[in-house]
C-alpha cells in the first residue's frame, strides 16, 4: 500500500489529536466543575424546587452510558428541537454535564462533611451565608474533595475518547486514521494508549500536589 508506513508527519497528527483531547478535557472540566459546584451549593441551601430536579438529573447522568448520552445530545436533541449541533458542541455539552453530575456528588459530600456545629457557631457570631460558605465550608470541603475529584477527572479524560465516534478529531480518532492507513493496530493503539496513560498520570500527579498543598494549608488532622 502506498501510504502504509509511518511518517514524521504522524507525530504532528498525534499532537493535534492530543491537543483536541486536552482542550476538550480542560474545557469540559471547568464547565463541569462549575456546574457541579453550583448544584451542590443549591442543594445545600435547599433552593426551592431544586433538590428533586438536581438529584433526578445527576442520577440519570451517572447511571447511563456516556456513549448513549453523546448520541442523545448529538443525534436526538437536534432532531427533536430542529437545531444544528456540531460534533464539538455535542461533545462539550455531554462531557461537561457528565462531569458535573459526578462533581456534584463529591462537592455535596464535601459540604456535608462540615460539622453543623461549626456553621451554627458562625451563624451566632453574625456571619452571613456567603461568608460561611466562603470562609468555613469552602476551605474544608475543597481539601476533602480534591482526592475524589482527581479520580473522577482521570476517568473523564479516558471518557473523552468516546467523542471520536461522532467525528471529533481527538487523539482516538487520529489513532483510528493511522490504524486504517498503516494497518499496524498493535503499534498505533499501544502508542495511543501510552499517550492517554501519560496524560492521566500527569493529571493524577498534579492533583496529588494540589491536594497536598491544600492539606498543608489546613494542618488540622480532622479530614
Amino acid at each position, binding site marked *: 500500500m502506498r501510504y502504509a508506513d509511518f511518517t514524521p508527519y504522524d507525530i504532528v497528527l498525534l499532537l493535534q489529536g492530543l491537543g483536541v483531547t486536552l482542550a476538550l478535557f480542560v474545557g469540559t472540566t471547568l464547565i463541569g466543575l462549575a456546574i457541579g459546584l453550583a448544584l451542590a451549593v443549591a442543594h445545600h441551601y435547599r433552593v426551592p424546587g431544586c433538590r428533586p430536579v438536581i438529584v433526578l438529573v445527576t442520577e440519570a447522568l451517572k447511571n447511563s452510558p456516556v456513549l448513549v448520552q453523546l448520541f442523545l445530545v448529538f443525534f436526538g436533541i437536534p432532531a427533536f428541537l430542529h437545531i444544528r449541533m456540531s460534533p464539538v458542541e455535542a461533545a462539550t455539552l455531554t462531557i461537561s454535564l457528565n462531569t458535573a453530575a459526578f462533581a456534584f456528588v463529591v462537592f455535596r459530600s464535601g459540604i456535608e462533611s462540615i460539622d453543623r456545629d461549626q456553621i*451554627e457557631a458562625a451563624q*451566632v457570631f*453574625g456571619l452571613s451565608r456567603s461568608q460561611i460558605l466562603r470562609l468555613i465550608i469552602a476551605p474544608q470541603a475543597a481539601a476533602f474533595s480534591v482526592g475524589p475529584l482527581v479520580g473522577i477527572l482521570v476517568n473523564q479524560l479516558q471518557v473523552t475518547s468516546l467523542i471520536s465516534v461522532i467525528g471529533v478529531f481527538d487523539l482516538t480518532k487520529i489513532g483510528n486514521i493511522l490504524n486504517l492507513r498503516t494497518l499496524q493496530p498493535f503499534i498505533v493503539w499501544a502508542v495511543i494508549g501510552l499517550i492517554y496513560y501519560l496524560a492521566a498520570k500527569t493529571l493524577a500527579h498534579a492533583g496529588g500536589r494540589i491536594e497536598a498543598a491544600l492539606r498543608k494549608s489546613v494542618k488540622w488532622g*480532622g479530614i
Partner: protein
Amino acid sequence: MIVAENVEKRFGDALVLKRVNLRVEPGEVVTILGASGSGKSTLIRCINGLEALSGGKITVDGHDVSTKAGLVAARRASATVFQLFNLYPHMTALGNITLAPIEVLKLPKAEAEARARALLDKVGLGAHAGAYPQQLSGGQRQRVGICRALAMQPRYLLLDEVTSALDPEMTGDVLRILAELADDGTTMVFVTHEIEFARHISSRIVFLEQGELIVDLPTAQFFAEDGGLAVPRIRQFLSKMKKD
C-alpha cells in the same frame, strides 16, 4: 436586657419549652439549672436564634430575635460559648477568634489580632495563638471558645454547658476564667450542672422542669430552706447532683 415572654418551643409533637418567662438585666449572672432534657440548652438556642420560636417572643436590648433585622442586632449584642467548643478546625486559635471581628464588625486585621492576643494572654494561651484546635486540649479549646465570644465585646455572654465535655482539672481552668468575667460585671446566662460554681457566681438561679420554668430566685434564696429548697423537685435535683 434579655427578655423572654411566654416562650414556647415545639419539636414535632414534643413541647420542650412551655410559656417560659425570663428577664436578664445588664450585669446579672443568671444560671439555668435543670435535669437533662429540661429545655435549658433549647432556651439558649432560642435566645441566640438557632431555634425558631413556636410561640412567645424574645428580645435582646429590644431587638426581636424572630425578625431578620432583630436577629442580626441581637447577635451583635450577645455571644455564645458552646458545650463542644464548635471551633473552626481549619483555622488557628487566632484565626478562630479574629474571624467574626474582621468579617462582621469590620475591624482592621491588626486591631482584631491585637484584641485576640490580649484575650489569649488573659486566659493563659498567649503561646498558642498559632495552634490549630486539634493541637489543643479540651480545656484549651474551650478557653479559645470563650476568647472568640469575648472578642465580639458582647453585652451578653450565653454559656451552654461549657464545662460538660471537660475533665475536672480543665473544668477548674474554665470556671476560674468565668468567675473573673463575672467579677468584671459581664452579663451571663449560664447553663450548667456545676451547682457550687453557680452558687458562687450567680446573681439569680432559674430552674427548668420539663420545659417549664418553675423557680426564678436570687441565688441566696434559691438555696434557702424556705426558698428554692422548699420545692421538692429542686431539693431532689440538688441532692442528686451532690451525690454525683
